[in-house]
Every structure is written in structure tokens, then in C-alpha cells.
């Protein structure tokens, strides 16, 4: 019954959206400070494996924190490379992704005795039923039963994020570092520490997203479980014009696109479109959006310059 599937699909959608949103929010802070970070995927991967181990050793909360921490620490590599040594942002991001894979395999072997996955059944957080929403009709309520608290926390972060950006000194300075670093410097504000902060926030949130994925969603670690969600987060970020609420909406849209093929296989609307093409949707949408809305899509001015690519040698 299609409607029954809708609820399950929505549940899955919320999970994917959480991952995309968390990573995207981290990316938002990073890029608003002027550093492009395409290594969100690699940071997420680091989060998945460290968090899984942490959950097994200590418990789910510790695991999530460990994932967050691991992402932040690993992102320091990107920060040092791009901010201090002014390495090209894209190159550094690629390196992060590549190294993360090797690192994950190494750690997985170390922690779980197998290079590509852990045992299943990692302890996870107790699940909640959201009081009013879980009683929604048409099966939608199912999406709000058995929900991981991380989902709530993640989406709840949108308000503090907006507040930090708009109403704190740090947020103002961070944004100015990304829009016009020269103006920032002329006023005596140092740009480098702000960018370090931005990069590490992206590492932390991407790592947390990874932790959520391995602990709460899959209850295990396995190689490749991130499925490119880190890149989709980038897409959501761009589509959301680097602002928290549009990002959230983008994350929900992409999350839904991820969930659809898994839950609505037999739904008649989708049966004529092969699953693989449905998977392409978020990517195609982003391309169309960027190509079509280039005037409206406005990266932070300094970060945008990094998107323009390096000069040849």
C-alpha cells in the first residue's frame, strides 16, 4: 500500500536528511569563513569508524562524541594546509577524502579485526516517539516513532546556527572573513583563527553525521556506507545558497530522494523510472540549479574565488 510506504519512507528520509544537514551545516560554517571543503565525505567516513568503535567500547553517546572529535581533529589537516600554507582548497579536500579511506580501513582492521566492516548491532541510543507527530494519519506518524534523538538535535541546530551567524561577534567576523578578508584585516581582525574555526566546525559536524550513520542508522560500520552523502551535502549547501534554513530544506529534499528508491519500489509512479535514475536526481537537480540560477547562487565571495580553480603552472 503506497501510503503505508510513505511513512516508512519519511522515516528513512529524516535519517538521510539528518546526515546531509549536519554535514552541510558544517560545510556552511567552513565555506562562510572562506575555505572550500570538498572533504566532507572523508571527514564523515572518519566519523563513522571512530564513532562505531566508541560506541562498542563505551556507549552510544561516547561514540557520537568520538566521531565528532575525530572529524574535528582530522579537519585540522585541511585547515593547516589551506589557511596556513595556502594550498589549493580543492587539492587539500581531495587528499582528505583519499587519506580518509585508507585511514578508515586501517582503523577498522585495528578495531574490528576486519578491514571493511564491524560486527552489527552496535549499541545505539534509546529511541523516542514524538508525542503529537507520531499520531499523524495516513501512516505518516510512523516516521515519528522510534526516532533517534540525534535527528531532533540535528534539526534543532538550525536555530543556534542562525543565532551564532547573525547575533554574535564570532559570526559577524566569520562571515566577513569569507566575504572580504581584506576588509577584515584592515579593521585589525585576524582572519586565520576564524578560518581554522570554520574548518574545524565542518569537521566536527561531518564527523557527527558519520557517527549518526554508523551508530544510529546502520548499527554497524561498513566501508562505503557514506555513499557520497558528503558530496550531496555540498550540493545541498550550494542549493541552499549557504544559508541554514534553505540548507535544511535542501537536505530534506535530497534525503527524500535517497529514501524513495528504497521504500517505494513498487509504487506505480516510480516503476517506470529505473532505480538508478532516481538516485541521480539530487545530482542532476544540483547541476540544473547551479547552471540555471548562477546569478542567484552566491557563494561567500572569498570562498567563491577558490571555486574558480587554480592557475596553471
Amino acid at each position, binding site marked *: 500500500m503506497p501510503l503505508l510506504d510513505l511513512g516508512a519512507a519519511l522515516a528513512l528520509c529524516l535519517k538521510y536528511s539528518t546526515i546531509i544537514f549536519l554535514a552541510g551545516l558544517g560545510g556552511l560554517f567552513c565555506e562562510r569563513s572562506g575555505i572550500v571543503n570538498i572533504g566532507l565525505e572523508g571527514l564523515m567516513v572518519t566519523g563513522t569508524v571512530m564513532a562505531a568503535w566508541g560506541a562498542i567500547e563505551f556507549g552510544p553517546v561516547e561514540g557520537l562524541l568520538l566521531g565528532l572529535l575525530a572529524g574535528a581533529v582530522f579537519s585540522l589537516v585541511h585547515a593547516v594546509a589551506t589557511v596556513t600554507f595556502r594550498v589549493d582548497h580543492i587539492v587539500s579536500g581531495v587528499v582528505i577524502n583519499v587519506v580518509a579511506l585508507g585511514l578508515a580501513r586501517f582503523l577498522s582492521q585495528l578495531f574490528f579485526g576486519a578491514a571493511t566492516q564491524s560486527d552489527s548491532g552496535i549499541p545505539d541510543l534509546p529511541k523516542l516517539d514524538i508525542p503529537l507527530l507520531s499520531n499523524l494519519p495516513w501512516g505518516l506518524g510512523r516516521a515519528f516513532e522510534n526516532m533517534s534523538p540525534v535527528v531532533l538535535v540535528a534539526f534543532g541546530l538550525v536555530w543556534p546556527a542562525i543565532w551564532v551567524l547573525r*547575533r554574535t561577534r*564570532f559570526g*559577524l*567576523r566569520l562571515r*566577513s572573513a569569507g*566575504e572580504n578578508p581584506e*576588509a577584515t584585516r584592515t*579593521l585589525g581582525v585576524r582572519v586565520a583563527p576564524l578560518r581554522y574555526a570554520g574548518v574545524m566546525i565542518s569537521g566536527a559536524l561531518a564527523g557527527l553525521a558519520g557517527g549518526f550513520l554508523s551508530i544510529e542508522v546502520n548499527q554497524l560500520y561498513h566501508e562505503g556506507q557514506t555513499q557520497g552523502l558528503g558530496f550531496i551535502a555540498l550540493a545541498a549547501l550550494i542549493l541552499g545558497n549557504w544559508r541554514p534554513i534553505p540548507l535544511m530544506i535542501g537536505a530534506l529534499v535530497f534525503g527524500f530522494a535517497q529514501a524513495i528508491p528504497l521504500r517505494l519500489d513498487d509504487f506505480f509512479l516510480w516503476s517506470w523510472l529505473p532505480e538508478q535514475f532516481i538516485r541521480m536526481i539530487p545530482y542532476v537537480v544540483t547541476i540544473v540549479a547551479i547552471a540555471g540560477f548562477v546569478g542567484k547562487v552566491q557563494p561567500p565571495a572569498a570562498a567563491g574565488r577558490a571555486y574558480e580553480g587554480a592557475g596553471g603552472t
Partner: protein
Amino acid sequence: MDPRAGDDHGEAGRTGAPFVVLSGITKRFPGIVANDDVNLTLVEGEVHALIGENGAGKSTLMRVLYGLYPPDQGRISVRGEDVRIHSPRDAIALGIGMVHQHFVLVDRFTVTENIILGAEGGPLLDMEAAHAKVAELATRYGFGVRPSALVEGLSVGEEQRVEILKALYRGVDLLILDEPTAVLTPQETDELFANLRTLRDAGKTIVFISHKLDEVLEIADRITVLRRGRVVGEATPSTTSKEKLAEMMVGRPVLFQLEKPDVQIGESVLRVEGLWAAPALRGVDLEVKSGEILGIAGVEGNGQLELAEAVVGLRPAVKGRIALDGADVTTWSVDKRRDAGLAFVPADRHGQGLVLNMSLWENCILGRQDDPGFSRFGLLLIRKIKELAAKLIRLFDVRARSLSAPAASLSGGNQQKLILARELESDPRLLVAAQPTRGLDVGSIEFVWTQLLEQKSEGRAILLLSAELDEIYALSDRILTIYEGRITGEYQPDASPEQLGLAMTGDQRQEEAS
């Protein structure tokens, strides 16, 4: 711009007490002395104008005061106490603020956000209080800006007011304005002056760096003239005149006396009609004939860049027509214009002239790499190109280690010679030369001038854009002055420097002096 009747030039607020005293300031850069034993006293409650040509040392002096450069010699004292200013932060702490010629504002921020950046007053922003304070400052000094407006929607004049407010918000008592009216319309200039008078009457000190003599006479209480790093004169508006100031600024021209060949001037090669180009070219007509050098004299920033680029094809013409040898080239690509006989020696050697990372010989054919003599079937004919490069380097005496040395390894003079050699080698009909000897040593300048005069005798048409009057005099057959995007006068080379200076710096249109 009518002089304001009744401006008492600061009697109201002037206390006359010395605020900042610069003594014996000397600042050197490799090869030149930018400031040479400069003494300057700035008092409270005045508008003090600092005038001089490009390269006179006005901006350098103020950057020393603002802490951007350390002086090699000399002392600065503020309110009687000797101080050391190591950075803009120190300067601001002492009450000295500066508004640069090129604004540094964050477009996507509001006015208030731009103003409070770096002076937020605490980890949390109280935007309401900040808005209120900005609004209060604005009304107090008569600035009309809305604190919550986004900077990207502001006019240039409004942006400038934001920059000034940035300084006022931090409680500065001395405000340095570097060429503030360079980018303003006359109305905006009037508004600015009204604001400056209010500030002065409230006891602030304004340092007004400018080359625009009319404005200086209108707004300044005292005037200091710099030339070649030295103070050459001081005056007040009541004791001087535009002519006297121009003479002090410009001095006696002509470093070299080169013989101008007597050449038959021929057909019209370049014809420009009603040309407008964003942002600063506002309707220009001119004509250059073969065998003629037309000199466009003007201070940089008055539309020369746009004119040169529009003629070459790097900038689209918003309105108007450009014709080369009779053909309408207004919409032609750069490549097509070059094929039709246009050559370009740019003002920006590095950004528009040479590819620094490439070798000398590779730079020699930039723009001509698709000529049948230099490439066939898509492959470069390296030997031929290197032959050409060797010839050019020999002819123009370009000092370089080897043909394969990167262009970046050449000195400025040699780079310019290379560009000139390359452009002339294409046997052009029209040569557009923008600031061709900027930053060059004496020997290179003489060489370039000789070359240009030689080209003239070969029947080429040369459009010369220069801010150096020496150069204009030495080379031009006719002179047009440009100011704020329009041609303000046409002169023969026997016009006096005062006449040219005035036309270049904002006087009314003059009848043609012959």
C-alpha cells in the same frame, strides 16, 4: 561646483592647537626616496589639503602616519608626545583614521555591520544599540545613511560615508581621506564637503589628499604641496590661486628634449565617436591619423583605462562607435582588431601584457601565435619564433639571461621593452600605448620615447594615454585632456603646463588654445 559663499574656512571650530606633528619624515623604497625630510603640522579643527602629482609622496606620507609603513627617519608626535605607530590599530588608538581610495567594505553586510566589525564591544552583538549609535553619529555629522541598508545597494558616495563612519565610530579625531572625490559625482562631492565642514567645526582634523585644485581651494583651510617627496610650498586659499598651485605641483616640465620628426600626417586611422564605457568613460570623440601621436593627458582614474580597453576590444562599448581605417570595429573581438592592425601596450604589464610564467620567447608571439609564420598544422614553429625573439631582444636591447628565462625574471624596464618590441613587430596601423613608461628607469623611458617617435615617422598612428606631462609634451602632436570620463580640451604641444594641469584637474572646458 561653485565655491560656497560664506564658508569661513573653519574659524568657528578652530582651536589652532597642533594635534599631529610630522618632523623630518623620510621614507625610502628601493631606488627612490618617496618622502624626503617632510615636515607637516596638523592642527585641531582644520581641513588640511595635501596635494601633488602621482608619485609626489602624498599617500606614502599618510600611510606612514597611519602605521602602514615605518618611516626610515623622522618623528611623529601626537598632542605634544612622541609616538611610534606600528600598525593601523595603534593609529586608531591615537585617534587617527584613514579612508583609502579603494573602499574595503563587505557588500553583503549592512552599513552597521560593516561599521562595527572589529569594534563590536562584546561577544554578543546588540544590533539595535549599534544601529542607534550609527544613526546618532550619522545625524550628528549630517551623513545620510540608513544603518540597516546593505552596502551593495549603496552609491559610491554613500559607501564613502560608511567608510568615514567606520573611523568616526572608533572615535578618531584626525581623518585622512585619500583622493576622496576621485569617484564622486559633483553632487556627491558637495555633500561630502558639507559633511567635512561639520566635522571640522566640531573640532576634528581632516587631511584631504587630492590633485583636484578647484576642490582643494573650496574646502581646505591650509594647503601643503609635495613634489618628488619634498614639501615645495604651503598656502591658504586666500593667499594662492589655482595657477600658482598648479605650477608648484607640476613644476617645469620636460626631462628630455627629443627631436620630433617632421612627418606628413595622413589619413584617419582611428576614429572614436560618442564612446561610453562602464564605469568611467562618458562620451568621448577623438581621431588619430597616420603619422600622428595623439596624447591623452589626464590623472589616472578619469576614464583612460576604459578608453584604452574599449578601443582594443577588452571592454564593451556601452554607446558609441569605433572605426579602424574606416571599418566599424565596435563589436569586433580583440583578435579581429589585431588582425586589422591594432597593437596594444598596456598600462598593466603583468595583467595584460605578459604571461610571467612563460619564457621570453613564448611571450614574444603572444597574440600572433596563429600567424602562418609561427605555427603550422597547429604546431608552433619553435625555431622561427626563437629567431624572432632573438631579433627583438637584440633590437630593443632587452637584458635577459636567456631566451628561455621566464618573463618574470626581467626588470620592469626590460619587460616593457619586450612588450613594445612585440607589439611593434606586428607592423600595426594603430598603436594604443597606455602609461607606457610607468615605473621605468630613465634609460628605458628615453628608449621607449625614441621608439614611439620612430614609429610615428613610419606612418603609424599612436594613441598615447599618459599621466606624465613630460611624456605628453615629448611625444604628442596634439593633446587632449581627459577628466571624469570626458575630453575637456584640445591643445597643441606649446600649451603651458598650467593650462594642461587645470584642464586635467577639473577646470571648466576651455576653448582650444592654439
